[in-house]
Each structure stands twice: as structure tokens, then as C-alpha cells.
């Protein structure tokens, strides 16, 4: 069991969030292990995005804890949590719209390049060297994700599908250990969805743990090693994809049986 515990990357303990009278998340417990792809599903308004916001520090939980890599990150600021290697994407396309694709990814590198205020400024040989390395890193990510051809476009000019990919690229540049994706294939056509599934698999192969919220069951079943199901903020089921598919409570929640 000790060996198993060491493999735990993210642990959610008794997490709750109330908005006024509404319990958006209630006493939620689950964990992800290193290298897994875990799905977080549930009907509209189940509290999935709220869980993401709680984990990444954008919302403060009413109760409970978030442990990431053995460190208690509850009540910490988003940028502090990001520094620990926990990244998330957003349900809507949130990008630096007035910047080019390349600059977007470059900004994602911030955590690992720091300020370099003086260095950038003085433009020494070392700066040039670092700049080259940085450019290479950015290009590598863009090639990996298939956005290389579009590198000089403004983010706002990209198609919806490309924008969603760019959102992921920015987080990849920040070198996450755990990547949380909020509905990565929403609004995509079948081909784009397939590409995205492939991309997520590739990301996972790099050793990055993935926590994914998605309404598309085909995508979820195709990708996830394990699934957690939420309804009205509460966990109603957890298990392997096959188990979840056959779980009576899940079927009930999705069919909306009163």
C-alpha cells in the first residue's frame, strides 16, 4: 500500500463549495495516480468546472483539502499552485487574443524562464543562447500539436478547434505534471475530436497525468483509465469505464429519472 500511496499525485479530501445556499460541490473525495487519465463527468451544472476552479485555486473551498504531490495547496493562489506543476485549461477559449500563436506559447514558458529582466535587457551572448533554446521549445510544442504552420497568426484569427489546441499548448509550455482539461472537444467536428483524442494520448505518453471533464462519452470512454461521476456536486460513482457505463446511478443521473 505504501508503494501505491507514493504514486498518488492529486488527492481531494472532503471538498465542498457553497455559493450562497447552493452546494455546488459537496464532500467530494477522489484521487489520481501518476500517469493516469481520469475522467470527471456529470450532467450540466453538476459542479465539474467548480471542482477545477477549487483545485487550481481560482475558488476557495468552503471545506476540505486539495493535496498535490504531497503538498497541501488548499487556499493557495492560482499562480502558486501552477508553480507546483498543476495546470488547467478553461471551458471557454481563454487566450492572449492580440498576440501571435508563438507568443502565446512563449508566455506559457514563463514559469521555467523566469523574468530574465536584466539579461533580456542587456542582450548578452548568453541571452541569445537562451532565446534560441526558448524558441526551439516553443517550436517543438507547436509541431507536436500541429499548430506550427499557424505560428504567426493572431490567436483571435484561429478557428475554434485550433484555439482549443492552442489553449492546451500554452499549458504544455508550462510543463505540467497534472493537466486538467475542461471540455477539450466541445464544439468540435468529428475529425477535430479524433485529433484531440490523439493529442491527449500523446500528452499522456509524455508522462503527464490528465484529469478531463467532457460531455462526449465516446471521447471519455476512449481516453480514460478511470472515471469519477458527479451529480449535484456529489460523487455518485467511480470506477473503470465499463463499470461506469453499466452503473445504475449514472444511467439514472444522465436520463434524468426523477
Amino acid at each position, binding site marked *: 500500500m505504501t508503494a501505491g500511496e507514493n504514486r498518488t499525485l492529486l488527492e481531494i479530501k472532503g471538498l465542498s463549495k457553497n455559493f450562497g445556499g447552493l452546494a455546488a460541490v459537496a464532500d467530494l473525495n477522489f484521487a489520481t495516480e501518476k500517469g493516469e487519465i481520469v475522467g470527471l463527468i456529470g450532467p450540466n451544472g453538476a459542479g465539474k468546472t467548480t471542482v477545477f476552479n477549487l483545485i487550481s485555486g*481560482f475558488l476557495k473551498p468552503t471545506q476540505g483539502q486539495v493535496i498535490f504531490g504531497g503538498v497541501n495547496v488548499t487556499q493557495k493562489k492560482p*499562480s502558486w499552485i*501552477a508553480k507546483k506543476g498543476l*495546470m488547467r485549461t478553461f471551458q471557454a477559449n481563454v487566450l492572449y487574443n492580440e498576440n501571435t500563436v508563438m507568443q502565446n506559447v512563449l*508566455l506559457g514558458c514563463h514559469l521555467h524562464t523566469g523574468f530574465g529582466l536584466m539579461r533580456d535587457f542587456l542582450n548578452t551572448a548568453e541571452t541569445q543562447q537562451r532565446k534560441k533554446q526558448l524558441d526551439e521549445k516553443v517550436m517543438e510544442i507547436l509541431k507536436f500539436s500541429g499548430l506550427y504552420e499557424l505560428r504567426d497568426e493572431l490567436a483571435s484569427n484561429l478557428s475554434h478547434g485550433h484555439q482549443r489546441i492552442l489553449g492546451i499548448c500554452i*499549458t504544455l509550455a508550462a510543463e505540467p505534471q497534472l493537466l486538467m482539461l475542461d471540455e477539450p472537444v466541445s464544439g468540435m467536428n468529428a475529425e477535430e475530436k479524433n485529433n484531440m483524442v490523439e493529442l491527449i494520448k500523446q500528452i499522456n505518453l509524455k508522462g503527464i497525468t490528465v484529469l478531463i471533464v467532457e460531455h462526449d462519452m465516446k471521447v471519455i470512454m476512449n481516453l480514460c483509465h478511470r472515471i469519477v461521476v458527479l451529480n449535484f456536486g456529489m460523487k455518485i460513482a467511480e470506477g473503470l469505464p465499463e463499470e461506469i457505463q453499466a452503473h445504475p446511478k449514472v444511467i439514472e443521473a444522465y436520463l434524468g429519472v426523477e
Partner: protein
Amino acid sequence: MKNKNTTWTTRILIFLIASGILLPMVHKDPYFLHICIIIFIWSILTFGIRIVLITGHLNAAQGGFLGMGAYFSAILTMKLGWSFWISLPASGLAVAILAMIVGYPILRVKGAYFVMITFGITEVFRQIWMMWKDMFGGPQGLFGVPKPSPIDIAGLHISFSSKMPFYYLALVVLLFTVLVMRRLDNSRLGITLRSLPQSEMLSESIGIPILLYKLIAFVIGAFFAGLAGSLWAHYFTYASPDDFNWTNSLFMLMYAVIGGTQTVLGPILGCMLLLSLDEVLIEFQEYTPIVLGLILIFILFYLPGGLISLPQKMGSLLKWRKK
């Protein structure tokens, strides 16, 4: 496209610098030099407000920082007997430190509220100058600020009693400002600063310390306001609370917006156009604000990118014609 723009900016910049250096040699008129000096000082100030503007904050404390720079420099030279050549950078640094202390708590405030809080800061500064007579000279201000002390460079004895040397002094400080700002624009710091107003949420999620970056911009802006203030005090030889009120910040904003904030040319063009207009219209002084206001409104309506976007705009107009 982008590269073409940059080379154009560089060319115009080099042209401006060259004419800045050469002009006084052919046109020695002190009145002309005086106007140029004013333009240089205001350009430095406008650069300071622009660097904060690109992070999405409209800093109305810039007028107050200008005053603080002027008073610091006046006090350092008059009361402590420092040389101008030390008090110039010292004022910049002092105002930068002041901005660090003031900026840390207030940069959390956003939008219209930030404008108001920085107005408030300028106004509080002003009341301090007026009330603290022993230090700042009260409502009259400090008079008799010395001109910069003479220096010897390469066997040349330069005294600052005439306009020409001061012209070159202000030009050098402006060039330094342009150099720094241009570097900044093209560096990662510049990209990061410009990204801040686009999405704070995204920046936070990838670990960019937003507040720290805003503070850096705020402090850099204040540093240059401090330098400009020092020049101001030693050029006019006084520092008076009436000169440093909140309307100054609005004028800087106006110059920045009319020139355009996209490239470093903007603040210079804005200051050149509007301040020389002030002089052209000197006979019709009471009409000047009306003309300024109308230009401002015209630019906002038809040239939202400022004067520097004029070539682009003309280009697209021409293209449209050809079609």
C-alpha cells in the same frame, strides 16, 4: 508585415534623433530650443504613462510622480547641496522607490477605480507639498533651484546658463528613455506586460505573477517621471504645487493616445504635434483647448491607433480604392 513596420519605426526614429542632434546647430533661436526642451520633457513623461497603459492601467499618479521628482531634486540640490548630476538619477530612483511602496497595495484596484485612486494619490501629494512649508515651500513652492552645474567633457567647458546645453541634456535623457522603452517593447518583458490586460485568468493559471509585473511597469514609469521632474525643476528653476496636478496626467494620456501606444514613436509624435500646436496657437491661447479637444475626438473617431497608425490606415484606404 510586422518586420516592415519595425524597420519603418526604426528609420523614422533615426531620422528624428539625427534632426534632434543637428537642428540647434542651424536654428539657434532660444525660443525654439525652449519649445524643444518642453517637448523632450513631456515625451519622457508620456513614455512613463505608456508603459503602465500597456498593462491595462491608466496611471493618474504620474502627474504626482513628476512633482515628487521635481521636489526631490530641488531639495537635494538646494538643501543638501548635492550636484545636479547626482540628484538627477537620485530623483528617478527616489520616485521609483516611492512608486514601489505606493504601487504594491493599489495595483490590485482596477479600471475606473484605479484611475480614481491614482488621482487621489496625486491630490494627496499636492496637499502635502502645500502644507509642509519647511520642506516643500508651501503653496509658493521652492524657488531658486540651481541650473545644472557646469561640466568638462573632452576639454570642453559646458555651462548650463544658456538654452543650448540644456537642450542636449534633455535630448540625452529622452534618448536614454527611448532606448530603454524600445528594448522593453521587443523583449519578453514587453510581451508579458502587453499580455496582462488580455486575460488575467490565463496568466494566473500558468503562473505569471501579475501583480509583480504590474508593479515593475508602474515603477519603471515612475522612474522616468522622476527624471523628467528633475529636469523640470532645474530647467524652470522652481517647483510649484500648481504645476503638478492631476490634469498633467490627463495631458500625458492625451499625448500617448494621440500619438498611439503601439510603438515607441507614438509618445514622441503625440508630444511633438500637440505641444508645437500649443505654440502655433499662442496668439489664440483661449482657443487652444478647443483645438486640442477636437483633435483628440477626431483621432478617437477616425484613427483609434493614434498618429502612428496613419500609414497603415492610408495603406488600407488605398488598397480599398484599387479594388
